Structures are given as structure tokens and as C-alpha cells.
């Protein structure tokens, strides 16, 4: 009996394992690094990019998202490199594959559901499925709460600005759109074709948003808020500057946190 039990345990362990959990992971994007820490796998990180979050400051640096140092990656002898489809170049992934290094590529996400599924898949790949499931479940609950609350409110029209010169915004092809939609707002540029479309100031004025949300990134600063104050939406509506990485981080917990912030902005 004991023997059978032992065998059963062994089999189930083997099934759970699938691929063995990687022990030396190289992350090619700051968002991946954050996700790996959230999955409590930070100890398995062998290398990160120069711009990865402070938690990873003692890890070996492998260059930048766009120009990772292939030699440095090889020297770290990783058993898994994790890349993003949107941020990293396909050439990098191909070159690493050529050198026999396994690469796991995260897809780009266009909504909260896709983020959750991607996060669970990542967790599975690095042997942290339980943590991933727990985080996703909790995030879903938080998102659901916000969604329920927002039903009681009028839907305000939102302009989400991610760049100042030129003006960039987001469409429904980006997960960022869900921050607005799930918090009960209307993204004035949701229907544009490109993921991060470029728009003119005139188009923004014409769409007449109630709320302007400025994501502090590069050239979007307080100056931008001042600029909008001269126009009607700026004078009558609300202008908010966000300075938080959760809004650029396609991970479930960050999304939930960001959504709660947006919900407060829209309804309080």
C-alpha cells in the first residue's frame, strides 16, 4: 500500500513538473522582471535589463530591452530567457534560439483577461503555477469589485495621454483601454486602429473629454497639464497626472491596483 502511494505521489509530481522549473532565468523586459518577483521566483533570476525595477538592482545586467547583450546572456548560462513580443526584437529571440538557449516569449495583451491568462502561463513555465493562480484570483476579485461599483456612476469620457510630442494615446487594442472601460469610463479614442495611436490636439478638443489622464512617461509632465488648462476640457474637466509603473505593467496585480486608482479618479 505504502509502495503504491509512493508511486502515485511520484507520478503526480512528475505530471505537475512537466518541464523542470528553470533555475537561471534571464528577463529581457522590466515588466517580466516585475512579474517574476510577484511570482516569488526572484531568486531564480540570473540576469535582468538595465531598466529593471529596484528589487533587481543586484542582479547581473544584460543590456536593454532593444539591445540586449547576447554575449552577456550566453555568459550567464541561462536555462530560460523570457522575452516580450511587443518590446523585444524578433532578431534577438532568433539569435538566442540559434545558440541553443530556450526562449519563452510573452504575447502582447489587449485586455485584462489576456493578461491573466498570460500570467498563469508564465507561472506554469517557471514552476510557480500556484502563486500565479492565487494572484490572478485575487486580482479578478478586485477588478470585479471596481466594476460593480462603477455601474452606479455616469460614464465619463476619458482622454488617456502617454506622449506629449507628438500626442500618443491608447486604443482598445491595448490592455490600457481596460483601465478606462472597467472603471466605467469611455475611452474617446478606443476605436482607432493602432494600439498606441498618434492623435492631434485638435482631435482631442473635438472629442471633448471630461477627464484627461496624463501618464508621466518621458515628455509627459506637469507642463502638459498646464497646456490643457487653456482649453475647454482642461478648464471644466479633471486633469490627473499618473506617476506609477502599474499603468504600463501588463500583470494582474498591477492592473487591479491601477484600476482602483482610475476608479477613484473617475468617481470621487
Amino acid at each position, binding site marked *: 500500500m505504502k509502495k503504491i502511494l509512493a508511486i502515485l505521489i511520484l507520478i503526480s509530481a512528475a505530471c505537475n513538473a512537466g518541464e523542470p522549473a528553470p533555475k537561471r532565468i534571464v528577463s529581457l523586459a522590466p515588466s517580466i522582471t516585475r512579474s517574476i518577483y510577484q511570482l516569488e521566483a526572484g531568486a531564480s533570476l540570473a540576469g535582468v535589463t*538595465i531598466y529593471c525595477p529596484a528589487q533587481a538592482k543586484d542582479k*547581473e*545586467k*544584460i*543590456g*536593454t530591452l*532593444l*539591445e540586449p*547583450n*547576447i*554575449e*552577456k546572456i*550566453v*555568459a550567464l*548560462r541561462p536555462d530560460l530567457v523570457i522575452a516580450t*513580443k*511587443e*518590446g523585444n*526584437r*524578433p*532578431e*534577438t529571440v*532568433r*539569435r538566442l534560439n*540559434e*545558440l541553443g538557449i530556450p526562449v519563452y516569449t510573452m504575447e502582447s495583451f489587449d485586455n485584462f483577461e489576456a493578461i491573466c491568462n498570460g500570467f498563469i502561463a508564465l507561472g506554469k513555465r517557471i514552476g510557480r503555477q500556484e502563486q500565479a493562480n492565487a494572484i490572478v484570483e485575487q486580482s479578478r476579485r478586485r477588478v470585479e469589485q471596481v466594476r460593480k461599483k462603477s455601474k452606479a456612476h455616469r460614464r465619463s469620457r476619458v482622454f488617456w495621454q502617454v*506622449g506629449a510630442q507628438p500626442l*500618443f494615446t491608447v486604443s482598445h487594442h491595448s490592455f490600457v483601454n481596460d483601465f478606462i472601460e472597467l472603471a466605467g469610463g469611455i475611452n474617446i479614442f478606443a476605436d482607432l486602429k*493602432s*494600439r*498606441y495611436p*498618434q492623435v492631434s490636439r485638435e482631435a482631442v478638443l473635438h472629442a471633448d473629454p471630461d477627464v484627461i489622464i496624463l501618464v508621466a512617461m518621458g515628455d509627459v509632465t506637469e507642463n502638459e497639464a498646464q497646456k490643457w488648462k487653456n482649453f475647454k476640457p482642461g478648464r471644466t474637466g479633471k486633469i490627473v497626472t499618473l506617476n506609477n509603473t502599474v499603468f504600463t505593467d501588463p500583470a494582474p496585480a498591477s492592473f487591479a491596483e491601477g484600476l482602483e486608482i482610475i476608479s477613484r479618479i473617475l468617481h470621487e
Partner: protein
Amino acid sequence: MNNKIVILFCALAALLCVSFAISLSSGSSSMTPGRLIAALSNPSGTGTDSVIIWRVRFPRVALAMLTGMGLAVCGAVFQGLLRNPLADPYTLGISGGAALGAAIAIVSGANSAGALTLPLAAFGGSIFSVALIYFISSRHNFSTHTLVLAGVIVGFICSSLVLFIFAVTDASKLQAAIVWLMGDLSTASSRLIVTAGAAISAGTALLWMFRQQLNILTLGDEKAAHLGINTALVKKIIFLAASLITGATVSAAGVIGFVGLILPHAVRRLAGPDHRVLIPASALAGAIFLPLCDTAARTLFAPAELPVGVITGFIGGIFFLLLLLRKP
């Protein structure tokens, strides 16, 4: 004179070896001399050091040598053929066409489809601009200034189309295109290096065969015709051979500026304008210069890498200004 040239070639050959050795032995991961020698003597090894030297650094150094050689030879030949000191693959619009092809491939997402999509698109783009320049020039019997003018204008059209494409694309894809436009030796596959290398070598050999005709063409179309040269035919062949080289270099390594412009000038100052010397000396100079620039790009801010075009432009430009400061 002959002695001087022998010395020049000996010096260039020695520098080539030095450049190769430096490029192969330096990188972001420092190795002790012992480990370096062990890795160097074991090209098929699977250890990390061997993989780094032979499968990461070597293809990159080889590609830098080939593209440096190709660009310098093209520059030397274009400057002689067009009797214009500013002529190089860039002023002639050929790499502008390649850049347009590559920008379309990156921005449309076709680049993700396969390793050869981007090089093929870049090559297609250069063929497109070459064909356009060729067509316009053929109506003017390949007169020198039509070639230059047509090239410059095709270059302008291509770069405005590239800017147009950039203006209407996602910022996230833009950055990858910009990396490529500044010259990128980091990701070429070995198959691509072999293909591009074959095209560059064949083109260079063809140009070398026309070294005498090139010398005569520098006297001007009319005199060359009097000396029994079929100027239009020779120009066509030379133009197409140089375009082949440019297309191959740009598709394998992106747009790398200044090498084709500066190196032939520097070589001309040292060795004179005779294409019998100028072509091989420029080839060697390019094969020395670009791997060194790329090594600097790889190591200066390691682990971050600079685009090699930044180094070639900066170091090359300063070096050239120093040459100009010297009285002739």
C-alpha cells in the same frame, strides 16, 4: 613609390590581424588570457567560453569585416566613378531604398515571420532604388552628374517615405526600426553572413577587374571614350556591382554610415588615387575599421550596447577632421 605601397599593404595586413585579435578577444565578459586561449583553440567546444568566442563574437566580427570591406570598396569606387568626393552608398540613395524596405518589414510585422524577411526586404528596397536611379540615368547616357542627382533625389524620396511610415506607426515598433537604422551587427545569423559575404566578395572581385577602366573614367567621360572605353557600359557594370555590395551589406548589418565615405578618402590620402591600389587598400581598411568600431560599441558601455553607426560616425568623423587638418 612601389616600396611605399608594399609597406602600406604590409601595415594594413598587420593591422587587420591586430583588429581581428582585439575584436575576438574583447567583449562584455572578460576572460583571463588562459581561458581565452583555451576557448580560441576549441572552436567546436560547447563550454560557455567557446560558445561566446566562436558562436557569438566570431560571426559578429566576421560580419563587421565583410560589411566594412564592402562599404569602403563601394565608397572608393563611387567616388572615382562619379568624380565626386561626397559620393558613397548613402549619397547615392541605395541604402535609402534598403532602409525603406527594412522599415516596411519591421513596421508591418513581417519581420516576425522569419529570419530572412528583413534582409530580403532591405535588399528589395535597394534594388528598387537602384532600378530607379538606373532608369533615370540611362536616359542621359549615364552621365556622371545625372547619376549623382538621381541618387540624391531617390535617397530623399526614400527617407521621406521612411519618415512617413514612422509617423503613422506604433511607437513600440518604431524603436526596433531605429535600432536597425543606426546599424546593427548583433543579430545576424551565420547563414545570412555567408550569403552576404558571397555577394560582397563577388561584387568586390568584379570591381577589382575593372580597376583600369575606373582609372581611365576618372579622367572624365569624354577622354575615357577617346581612349576606347565604352563608358556607358563600364559605368553600368560598376554601378550595378557596387549596388549589389551595398544591398548585401545593408541587408545584413543595417545602415552603417561614414565607413564608405571616410575610409576611401583616408586611403586616397595615403596611397594616391590609383584604383589598383585604392580598391584593395580600402577593402583592408574597411575590414580593419568596422570590427574595431563594433568592439568599442560592444564594450564601452557594457553590458549596454551602442549602435555601431554612432561609433563610426563619431570616431570616423574626428579621424577624418584630423586628416583634413594636416596640410596635403
